[in-house]
């Protein structure tokens, strides 16, 4: 399997405080990779730095090319997409305009087909295509943010906490769509606090604690790891109170 994204010995700092220390990771083609970890472990910081929003020390290569000198917009044009935690939608514009702008770097002729694909993945968005993005529900906004990123035809989509604050039924929907993306040839780098759901659909997984990766391997192995189970999956030992 060819490597799509490779991060080597990455450090990200806010001033003197290092939020991410010596992190290396790889995402292959057609692969779902997840980074799980507690709040404040540095997951969002790492994704932002890979996208070029925060400065990163170390090496990041995408599709064999070093990203060091490239701006966010160039990374988008290369096929790297990020759906940030706060979604960053154009709230005063309607759903269709949001999607259309997602294809800003794509040829006009292809954008139409892209939009049909996104509507097929998220029929809800099609129903609400003339509605302002700011008036959508949380789940619909998440779908729109993912849809907008997909309009740019990314090879790798990075999702930051897509399930945060959403109803369980919508979370299930979003995770189902993530697996559909893999089937359609889009790799996914998924950052989640909901480790159980993330590990279920991922191929590879990394566990992040206090800015460092403490464990990595096949998602199924990580899910079976006792320490992970105790810390992140919320499994209870026998005899302990469930509440």
């Amino acid at each position: 399997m060819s490597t799509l994204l490779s991060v080597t010995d990455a450090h990200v700092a806010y001033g003197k405080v290092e939020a991410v220390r010596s992190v290396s990771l790889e995402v292959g083609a057609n692969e779902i990779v997840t980074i799980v970890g507690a709040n404040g472990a540095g997951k969002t910081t790492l994704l932002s730095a890979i996208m070029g929003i925060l400065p990163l020390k170390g090496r990041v290569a995408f599709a064999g090319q070093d990203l060091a000198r490239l701006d966010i917009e160039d990374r988008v044009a290369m096929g790297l997409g990020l759906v940030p935690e706060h979604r960053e939608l154009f709230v005063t514009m309607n759903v269709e305009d949001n999607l259309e702008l997602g294809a800003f770097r794509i040829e006009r002729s292809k954008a139409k087909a892209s939009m049909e694909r996104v509507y097929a993945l998220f029929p809800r968005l099609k129903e609400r295509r003339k509605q302002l993005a700011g008036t959508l529900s949380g789940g619909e906004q998440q779908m729109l943010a993912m849809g907008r990123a997909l309009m740019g035809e990314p090879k790798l989509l990075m999702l930051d906490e897509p399930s945060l604050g959403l109803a369980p039924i919508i979370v299930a929907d979003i995770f189902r769509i993530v697996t559909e993306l893999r089937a359609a040839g889009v790799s996914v780098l998924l950052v989640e606090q909901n480790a159980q759901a993330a590990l279920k659909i991922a191929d590879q997984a990394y566990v992040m604690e206090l800015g460092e990766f403490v464990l990595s391997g096949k998602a199924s192995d990580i899910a079976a790891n006792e320490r992970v189970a105790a810390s992140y999956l919320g499994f209870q030992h026998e005899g302990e109170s469930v509440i």
Partner: protein
Amino acid sequence: MNTTIMLFLVQDGITNGAIYALLGLALVLVFAVTRVILIPQGEFVTYGALTYASLAAGQMPGTAKLALALGIGAFAFDLFVARKALHGRLVVRSFIANVVLPAIVLALTLSLAAQKPPVAVCIALSLVIVAMIGLYLYRIAFQPLAHTSVLVLLIASVGVHLALQGLGLLFFGAEGQRGPAVLSGAFTAGALRFTGQSITVYAITIAFIVALWLFFGLTLYGKALRATAVNRLGARLAGIRTTLSGQIAFLLASVIGALSGILIVPITTLYYDSGFLIGLKGFVAAIIGGLVSYPLTAVAALVVGIVEAFSSFYASNYKEVIVFMLLIPVLLLRSLAAPAVEEEKD
């Protein structure tokens, strides 16, 4: 007061208000997209007006040379920023846009100026020259500061305003100038007399507002500009360059400024420093619109124009004071509506 005077003052106010509306819209646009409060908007007005008047009088305007000088500066900035990853295509593209283009316009201006070109040619040349100045100013003064706070951008904006005003004195002298009317002739309707020029002002203002509305509502680049204004990070993640949006915003602002100048210079004598006050009235309208609302800004601009017309009739010594006092109740209301003012985190 009789009705004729009142109608006359309202008409006068609407003519001026239309100009303030254009300027106010440009200010809102530039602020929304780049967070720059464009104090030099008034200089775009005077540069446009006086370049047009100079050309029509058969004189060579210094602004054409300024455009080339700024273009060379912008080219140098491009080279410096890309110094570690220079490649041929980038250099050639930047050279053509920043040096070759203004050089051609300068050559054209030099050859045409002496022969007193027709009005249409004068307008076109003035617009192109001021548009280039606006674009290169963005590259030199504002693009390198794009990530800084609103206050830093405001200070840069004041600096650019002072520099342009000084250069204006150098180029055009301290004497006032008037330009030829775009459309001559006049007709009367009842007690009111409409000159060709005031009709042109209305027509162009309405046409520009409709064009802007179509641009923002229907075209991809217009939507990209709105997107940048709504959410800068979101726009970047969609692949929209903030520098591109900034360039379009400055281009539009400088063209609107120059056009306003060309529209008023046949009606009023303009001096090298007249633009500041005119721009400031557009600014009053923009503030009433909260620096975000286009329709509110346009309506406020008409109110500013009409208030100005009436106060210059009744208390001409205080006309500026009265116009700027319009701001106080608006600011008071706004501060009551939003008591906590936070510096935007960006």
